[in-house]
């Protein structure tokens, strides 16, 4: 009986809990990084995800950026038609869910990591640039953060270096590179 209680708790905690903790949301558009970054379009990350001269990173580009190429459908994909009809033509912004969005109190300077330390995008964001379609976006019901911050594994153990974007990940990397930072270097 003790054993079955144990098993029950373990099952509920490891299997059921993450399913209750996270809520799934779908992205507004099935955007394919593979098509854009692949041979066909041959774009680099920095073409859309711009780091400006003031050192500000502009994350996901606005609809205006999409419209530079997609003012009218280039191909015959259903998603592209949706982009043009629902967003580009009425010039409406896409309500993207950002997997890597940190809370307001965290400050991550892309300039220092990309321009100065020359860290490739994939080192933190994983092979997302080759994805065919966006993953399901999961949000923590308590904190409101993206699941990517904690990482896909509920135990918090990462099986790939880019999994998990909690503070300890930053701290570990900074420590290995001999950087000594204060809290307010990454908090605002």
């Amino acid at each position, binding site marked *: 009986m*003790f054993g079955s209680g144990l098993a029950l708790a373990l099952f509920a905690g490891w299997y059921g809990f993450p399913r209750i903790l996270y809520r799934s949301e779908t992205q507004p558009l099935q955007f394919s990084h593979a098509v854009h970054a692949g041979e066909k379009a041959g774009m680099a990350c920095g073409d859309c995800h711009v780091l400006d001269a003031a050192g500000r990173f502009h994350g996901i580009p606005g609809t205006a950026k999409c419209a530079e190429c997609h003012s009218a459908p280039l191909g015959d994909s259903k998603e592209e038609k949706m982009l043009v009809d629902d967003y580009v033509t009425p010039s409406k912004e896409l309500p993207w869910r950002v997997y890597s969005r940190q*809370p307001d109190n965290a400050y991550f300077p892309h300039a220092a990591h990309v321009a100065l330390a020359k860290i490739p995008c994939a080192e933190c964001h994983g092979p997302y640039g080759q994805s065919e379609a966006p993953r399901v976006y999961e949000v923590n019901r308590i904190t*409101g953060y993206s699941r990517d911050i904690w990482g896909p594994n509920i135990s918090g153990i990462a099986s790939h270096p880019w999994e998990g974007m909690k503070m300890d990940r930053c701290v570990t990397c900074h420590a290995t590179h001999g950087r000594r930072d204060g809290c307010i270097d990454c908090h605002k």
Partner: protein
Amino acid sequence: MPTHLTRRDILKLVGGSAVGFFFTPVPWKLLDDTSIWTQNWSKIPPLPRGERTTRYSACTLCPGGCAVRAQLVGPMPYSLRGVSGHPVSRGFLCAVGLAGHHMAFHPLRLASPVRVDGAGDEAKVVPISADAAMRMAAAKIREGNGSVALLDCQPGRAVSAYYEDLARMIENGLYVTAASREDSTLQALRSMIGEESAPLGFDFENTSMILSFGAPLLDGWGSPGRLERLLKGKPDRSVRFVQVEHRQSRTALQADLWVPVNPGGERALALSIAHVLLMERPGRRTSATTIADMASYKETVARYTPEAARAESGIEPALVRQVAEELSIAPASIVLSGPDAGGGPMERDTEYAVAGLNLLLGNVGKKGGVVFLHEMPGTAGRSHVVRDIRDVPDHSLNLLIIDPASSGYAVPWKSLERKLCPGTGMVVSLAATMDEIAAHADIVVPAPAPYESLQDVPTQTGASAATFGLSTPLLPADKRSVDPASFVAGVIRLAGFPLPVPQCDDLLKERGRMIHAERRGTIYQPADGSTVRVAELAQFDELWTKLAGAGVWVDDPKEQHEPAEASLGASMLQSRGGPRRADPGLLLIPYGYKRAVSGAAISPILSKLSQESALRPGAGTVALHPVTAALSGVVDAECVLLDTTNGTMKLAVRIDRSVRPGVAEAVAGPIGRHGADIMDLCDVREDGTWRMTNANVRKA
């Protein structure tokens, strides 16, 4: 598997689960997530996201017109700062202006036109339509009972000229301004030299001595950056600055010399200075101006020896002679009077006594003195004598329409109320927020908040050259607000005077066209700090683009000449009794900081200055000298009752050694939510002054 569960089994199951629970992520993840939740819960707002842009505009919270560099995230400004090379504000932006972008979201922002039924605590606010408001106002005009006045507290704007035209269309129509604040000395001089429409200014930049009678030159006077930069910018400034004031104001604290005159003794002091100049050391400075009434002026002044004036002014004769001596040897000087923002205007004879010193010293029409300006393009032929509301006969107005622009100075409700026809007079206030004047109005019409609409920044009072700039919108227009000019035009049209309703932008463009046509002056552009001559701009559009980028036009200086003839207003100076005596009680002296005298119309963040730091005491306090307090038997921070013949008010006492004994200094501004103000206790006299009132303080 057991067929039935015993109590022991259940206990074991619970025990097993409890042990297992600690080997699941549940407790640990919940511990982590709940603490993270506290860092990001809905009780703190999310930060705005979007493109960052920089835009330029100008502050319209007072006529100072300080240039503003705004930083925006998406469509919202989040930070304002001054523009360092700006020819008008010279980089200055005051505490109130730094939070000017908050005004659109002020908790007292009006959502729709309202009718106010009743007054005071019982006032009921009923939303009405803009059309209904117009019809009610128009009906008052049609009644033809009494006059109709348009009150403009920031005269000189393009819309001011339009109001003036509208007022002229109506029989009994008046265009009035609130008591001529910073302009009082220039007003007096205009009438003294008989050029009622002459644009005059102070050439502070080239003067060597400034003698100010109460003007808050270092606490928000004119465009504050000008005098702040001049008098405090360089440690080795060459301007001698003497302040005559009855209280230790911020300006008095920072002057080279503070002359602590008796309350109301400014006139006697000015006349005793004139006495020394004329009788004791005549002919030091020669003036080319012939003084028409010199004989009778001398007659008056003869009585004011420094010794004789001492009883009224309270100033040692030696000090009077020293100041007069300094004035007489200064290569150029400026003498001016001015009211405190809360204390209100000075008596007319005081203004004349002070202004006259400039003519005695030959300061008028001279570099470093009072200078003549070119006419502002588009105002030629227009009278500069705008009627002051204190000159409007009492009980004569059937309709008073108040423009939303603020002078930054207090306007006591009583000073307006007495002008209304008893029983029938109606007040329509155009206001962005329910400020204390709006709280007394019969109809309040929501106006755009600062940075919501295109506005012009007219020439500053006392500027040595005409200027014109635009306050460009930084915020999206509020759909609920009504354009004041259109509203006033609409009322007058409904009253049966057919006229086209121009857009505010058209009025501004019209003035821009006239500036372009004159081809005088230069345009400064804040974005890059560059300056270009108007003459170099072939097309009007080029000029307009620069103005629309918050550029500012500065006129060229005019050739100066001393006026050939003038009078010193001697007839005005003769009739006056002795000084107002406080005995046996106290003298209530209200004061305030420009723009902050209106509590409802400043950003809620300004509470930090008074409530949360006590740097500038807020309204609702009265400051007493320790001796005065001891005589009245009150102690610090105590609640006391302040009595005057106008009523009683409960105030908190502040004991302050820098307060004059026998005086109760009270901060002007609304107390509580119903627009109560210390001015309700002040005697607002027929001449429109309320500087001093006999009062009494007692324990609550």
